[in-house]
């Protein structure tokens, strides 16, 4: 019962600096970190303290509100520092890694010969559970829920996104094992959605035990939220779990090898990277080795993740838990004269969805876009622009407004259960009034979690 979906709405932002399909190996520094801020809604309860020795796979902290969800160290070494921010919130747990990594033995497992409960408890105890996220709310899944389906997207359509076909090429067994693992988590189907506008790798095409769907269209076609909405939409009271395809392969690898091996291949991309390529690294690794002598001059912003949904990190910051890419774009922190490079210019270089700048004459041009917001925040004025990039049967502006004034009934009616902040990333990008739509939606979801769920 495979489904083929075609979406007409959306937007592919063409940016300069796509990663060349070469995997480079590079020596990582021994600085690693696990960032509790990567896990929305998790209140970390520390298990270790500075000076403790840990092996890869040892628990670092767990969620205070849900103690069975554990977060483990990706490397072996010594806890060097716990960095705290305002109100003593834990921002980073820093680990100085050993040169030779030691792994806590988890034991190799075969998911096909395990019961569902065993799989679940193994995922929880081994620290793999944080890879499983849930809709609604877009937070780490609650292991006590019964999801009606699990969705995995086989591609990332966001700007400068890493090519999953390339990264997972040759990881067929790990990926299939991962799918066999997550099959146990639901009584419903596991949906794997492939990109119909390209030819997907064998890894995905030959996946078994899942329903393979196809989707056609521009970004956000690769967002799992879009796929859920068109394949099996979430109604009130229903829960769907989602995983990233690359994380599925990581889960498969851990099950097969019995080691908490958090190695992943990431793309270093963006207009400010001299030689954008793929690199092999470990979750939580310091990103400076990839960027050293590899950046253009000038102020840059380093993003763990893509330009639409990623997190800002420093040049010596650490790779986020879920990130498959590091993007580097110019900072736009200088004032621009409006007649030469502002709102009065003809705009051959300025990218805009509206055709009010002449750059629309060159639809295939790859742009360099900096972090300037290109204007100040205003009340909503322009209508209809969000709808053009939002392939849901949901009114994005009205839902955003409902979140702004915290009307739970209206949020529910307008479809808050089906969306995650990342689904609104393009709305935020196109918004003429420069409203931070993703944070508004996140606050709305938090409100829903507090009051309803």
């Amino acid at each position, binding site marked *: 019962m495979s489904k083929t979906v075609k979406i007409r709405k959306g937007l592919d932002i063409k940016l300069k600096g796509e990663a060349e399909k070469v995997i480079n190996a590079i020596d990582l520094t021994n600085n690693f970190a696990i960032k509790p801020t990567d896990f929305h809604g998790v209140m970390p309860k520390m298990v270790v303290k500075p000076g403790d020795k840990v092996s890869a796979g040892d628990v670092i902290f767990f969620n205070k509100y849900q103690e069975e969800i554990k977060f483990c160290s990706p490397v072996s070494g010594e806890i060097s520092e716990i960095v705290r921010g305002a109100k003593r919130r834990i921002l980073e747990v820093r680990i100085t890694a050993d040169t030779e990594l030691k792994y806590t033995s988890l034991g190799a497992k075969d998911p096909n010969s395990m019961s569902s409960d065993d799989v679940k408890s193994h995922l929880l105890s081994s620290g793999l559970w944080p890879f499983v996220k849930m809709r609604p709310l877009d937070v780490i899944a609650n292991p006590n829920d019964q999801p009606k389906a699990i969705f995995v997207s086989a591609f990332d359509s966001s700007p400068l996104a890493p090519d999953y076909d390339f990264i997972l090429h040759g990881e067929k067994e790990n990926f299939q094992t991962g799918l066999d693992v997550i099959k146990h988590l639901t009584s419903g189907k596991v949906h794997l959605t492939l990109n119909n506008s390209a030819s997907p790798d064998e890894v995905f095409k030959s996946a078994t035990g899942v329903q393979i769907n196809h989707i056609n269209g521009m970004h956000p076609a690769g967002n799992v939220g879009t796929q859920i909405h068109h394949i099996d939409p979430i109604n009130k009271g229903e829960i769907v779990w989602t995983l990233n395809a690359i994380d599925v392969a990581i889960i498969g690898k851990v099950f097969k090898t019995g080691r908490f091996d958090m190695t992943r291949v990431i793309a270093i991309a963006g207009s400010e990277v001299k030689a954008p390529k793929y690199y092999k690294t470990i979750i939580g690794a310091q990103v400076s080795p990839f960027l050293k002598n590899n950046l253009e001059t000038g102020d840059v*912003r380093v993003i763990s993740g893509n330009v639409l949904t990623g997190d800002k990190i420093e040049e010596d910051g650490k790779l986020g838990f879920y990130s498959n890419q590091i993007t580097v*774009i110019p900072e*736009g922190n200088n*004032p621009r*004269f409006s007649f030469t490079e502002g709102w009065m210019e003809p705009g051959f270089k300025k990218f805009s969805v509206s055709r009010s700048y002449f750059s629309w004459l060159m639809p295939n041009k790859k742009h360099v876009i900096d972090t*300037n917001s290109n204007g100040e925040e205003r009340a909503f*004025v322009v*209508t209809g622009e969000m709808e053009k990039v939002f392939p849901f049967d949901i009114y994005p502006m*009205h839902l955003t407004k409902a979140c702004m004034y915290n009307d739970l009934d209206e949020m529910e009616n307008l479809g808050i259960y089906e969306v995650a902040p990342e689904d609104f990333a393009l709305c935020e990008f196109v918004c003429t009034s420069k409203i931070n739509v*993703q944070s508004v939606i996140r606050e709305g979801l938090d409100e829903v979690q507090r009051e309803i769920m």
Partner: protein
Amino acid sequence: MKSIEKLMRKFEPDHDGKWAKMHPVWDGFYTILFTPPLTTQKGAHIRDGVDLKRTMMMVIVALIPCLLFGMYNTGHWHYVATGDAPAYGAYFDMFGAKLWFGILKVLPIVIVSYGVGLGVEFFFAVKDQHSVAEGFLVSGMLIPLIVPADVPLWMLAVAVIFAVVIGKEVFGGTGMNIVNVALTARAFLFFGYPTKMSGNDVWMSGIANVENRPDGVSGATALGDLANTVSLSSENRTAKESILSLKEKITDMPDLASMFQTKIEGLEKVIAENEAVISQKVAAVPSMMDSLMGMIPGSIGETSVIAIGLGALILLGTGIGSWRLMFSFLLGGLVMAFTLNATAINPFMGLDPIHQLVLGGFAFGAVFMITDPVTAAQTNTGKYIYGFLAGLFAILVRVLNPAFPEGVMMAILFFNILAPLIDHYVIQANVKRRLKRLKTKTA
């Protein structure tokens, strides 16, 4: 650029200094000259190049053809009124003089509109300590284009203040208003000073001071002339009915035949006189071509469909004006014009439907008024319904009401108020779809 930046920074008021309250004013000017060095902090790291200033600027660019043509047209009709130029035929004679007169007449209106309106905006920005929003950049240009050239400047100033304060600021400023600001100003003028804003003395600049109007120049607009024929036509209809009943009476009472006969003759004379006036008025309606080009009297910027069409091309080309609204408004107008034409009982209803849309403010309303995103319906489906009904009512009000010769302003203001209701039902339909999905699932 650096030096201008430096100069601007020199005047920046300290946030805790003596002039701290004036910071929004400085900010307003600074952001006109420079895109501020604001970077994204949350969410998407890159943002679209367009902002509200750019959006508003594109609308102003789209209004420029109307403004230029309006200036020239103002000059033209001034010289027609004074008898120095023929109304039709030699439109481009005395080009320099007409243009110069138009500039002298229209420029002060534009300056007063912007000066007063932005003054109010800055006042509220300082009072509430928020940044100056760009909404009035467009309203300030729309207002001069929808008033007659002879509007006294003080009236205009009062109307602008009313529109910005009552029409917009009381609701929270740009983006929050319920009715279109420019149309609020126009409605204020219309209802506040009806004698100055309608009739035969305002549409040709300076005509009020001309004692002996040239032959065939009454000073009325085409719609004014046509509206006049409505009452004359209905008078004729009653007269014809009385003649019929009188004729019956003649057969009933032959004794009084001569008395009835004189009455009939009297009525017939009235009918003939009325018919003469009607045909004179109908003949005075400018030809389709003249109306299309805009060489007709009317409000400053509303006359030329060609100039408005250029504006429409810019708005649609840049994607800033909603084609859904423009299209459905035109469609609504056409449907009503054809309906009235098919059931015509007077020359106004009988006017060619296309000609009906070309005259008056309909085209201007379709391109610049109905497309105001804040006051229009916000959902795509809602836009079709809103535009269609507003177009329908614009022509309905224009032709069938006895009091005003134009209905576009009324219809759009009316539907501005109904737009949230239309959206409400469109969104409820979406909500119901979602609930239904849940029900079919559980059933």
